[in-house]
């Protein structure tokens, strides 16, 4: 992202400080960090996830901590190896979706007029067409694999970001600094990438986090349907095989419970990180918190939130 350059000097340290100040964001970051570490280093620590290591559908034991699958593979090994691919696709799609959304949304908001009308129509149509069925239809025609999943999820997921970023760009367009840049003769491309996008850094980061949550959930859903590469080891295909091997009807909870828990923990971690960011970067929540702190310091109790900002923003 070219816009990140403007904030890099103070940016990273400031973000890190902000995460550490907020308890929610810290918890989210720790949770996410754990899974990233597992995804990066875990596959070297566990054995081959495809290897047939024991009797099928064995409950958790000292030898196989999370039991064995319907084919007699180690569930823990599959879980750990699956983490890498699932997280990688999640983050790649999360970033791609926001990039496409930013490109379309900011272009629409910046140029306005007919360009805006056309692009807005485009993302509104994509918003109203149900994503998962469309993703299924596209994925079915393409060779199955991680690249297909990433492509399909990007195509069906960018519209929401475009809508939010268009609104943001529309309000930035009215600001004096954009007018100054136009008068100074800067090109449209430069104004969008160097002037407008950097002002949205916190929003973009929040959107990447949110889109990653979406991408992981949707990816697991598509693979559960059998639209991923069913011979690969990912969280979604683990669940696909658990369902196919009738894990439920044989009572083999260990074949599906850990995977879903991991999906949820990653999603929850991302959401916590995001709501933490929101409280840091949203001036309204910040003021409210300062006010509550002020009252508490004087022994009062804040009863109802004071309307810091009225309807007119």
């Amino acid at each position, binding site marked *: 992202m070219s816009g990140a350059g403007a904030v890099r000097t103070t940016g990273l340290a400031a973000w890190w400080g902000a995460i550490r100040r907020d308890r929610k964001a810290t918890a989210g970051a720790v949770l996410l960090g754990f899974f990233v570490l597992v995804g990066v280093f875990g596959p070297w620590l566990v054995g081959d996830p495809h290897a047939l290591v024991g009797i099928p559908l064995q409950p958790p034991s000292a030898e196989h901590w999370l039991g064995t699958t319907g084919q007699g593979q180690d569930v823990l090994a599959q879980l750990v190896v699956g983490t890498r691919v699932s997280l990688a696709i999640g983050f790649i799609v999360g970033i791609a979706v926001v990039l496409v959304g930013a490109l379309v949304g900011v272009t629409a908001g910046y140029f306005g007029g007919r360009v805006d009308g056309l692009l807005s*129509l485009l993302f509104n*149509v994509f918003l109203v067409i149900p994503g998962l069925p469309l993703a299924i239809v596209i994925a079915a*025609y393409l060779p199955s694999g991680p690249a297909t999943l990433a492509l399909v999820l990007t195509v069906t997921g960018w519209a929401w970001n475009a809508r939010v970023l268009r609104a943001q760009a529309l309000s930035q367009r009215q600001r004096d600094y954009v007018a100054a840049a136009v008068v100074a003769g800067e090109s449209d491309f430069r104004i969008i990438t160097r002037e407008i996008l950097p002002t949205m850094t916190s929003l973009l980061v929040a959107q990447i986090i949110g889109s990653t949550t979406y991408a992981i959930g949707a990816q697991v859903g598509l693979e559960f*349907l059998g639209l991923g590469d069913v011979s690969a080891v990912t969280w979604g295909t683990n669940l696909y095989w658990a369902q196919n091997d009738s894990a439920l009807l044989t009572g083999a909870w260990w074949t599906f419970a850990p995977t879903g828990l991991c999906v949820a923990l*990653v999603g929850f971690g991302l959401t916590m990180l995001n709501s933490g960011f929101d409280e840091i970067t949203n001036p309204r929540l910040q003021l409210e918190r300062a006010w509550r702190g002020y009252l508490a310091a004087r022994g009062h109790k804040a009863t109802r939130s004071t309307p810091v900002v009225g309807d007119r923003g």
Partner: protein
Amino acid sequence: MTFLLRRLGFYLLSAWVALTINFLLPRLMPGDPATALFARFRGRLGPEALQALRETFGLTEAPLWSQYLTSMGHVLRGDLGISVAYFPAPVADVIGTGLVWTVLLAGSAVLISFAVGTALGAVAAWWRRGWVDTWLPSALVFAGAFPYFWLAMVALYVFGFGLGWFPLGHAYSDDLTPAWSLAFVADVARHAALPVATMVLGTLGGWLLSMRNTMITVLGSDYVNLARAKGLPAGQVALRYAARNALLPSVTGLGMSLGYVLGGSLLTEIVFSYPGQGYLLVQAVRNQDYALMQGIFLVITLAVLGANLLVDLACLWLDPRIRETAT
């Protein structure tokens, strides 16, 4: 009226885009679409029948625009081609058998989740920092982080398999024939309880947070302060002044979320072997039944568009500002 006409035009446009995507997909994909589409038929049909089938799909040597017109004509007449998985049943008939179950499942899940979540959100905003406001949002956001279908698997395992409180799948018991009798309706409700409950659990948090956040802003606005200052009863301020106005973004979101819930419903149905569109979809994916897949995509898209139109009508009723500009 102009508002409704504009929305109607937008939905027609969206429907046309969906139809066009449907038409272009097999033709844009790598390889010869006709071969890919009909590879599954080989051995079951003679060459003449294949040729006839090609023409029904509009996959002929004719120029693209004439193929396009042919295929559009077929769709408009409700002809979605022939299913491979359920050969030789027409796709439209196959979809028709499962549609009512999907609509029942997704529809009741959306309505229950919306009603309960919005009410809880209003409660959380009104009694700010009460226990509803403190605990429920985090708990429900955590529940919402699970994939629907995984919640469904756990629910089925615990309440169906473990405790035996609910049936393990299907829409109604095998020994009953569909009829408008009390016994049958009760049986359907018992079978739908778990799938609907898991979908509601997965989506409740979103509605709660959306309502809570808007209502907190609305509660700080001047007209609510005025209503309080006038000495109106608290219930009236909460419901007629604050909640009604805070409802608007949630109602708009309702239309947007329908597609998402329907998608989740497809996956939930698979876990419960529920005979809706999701089950058909799995059959279609397994048998590479492209016509059925595309048919399901079209039908679901049209359902979502129709539901969005209803949501617009609700907005018209809720928001006098739209009504004034509309007339």
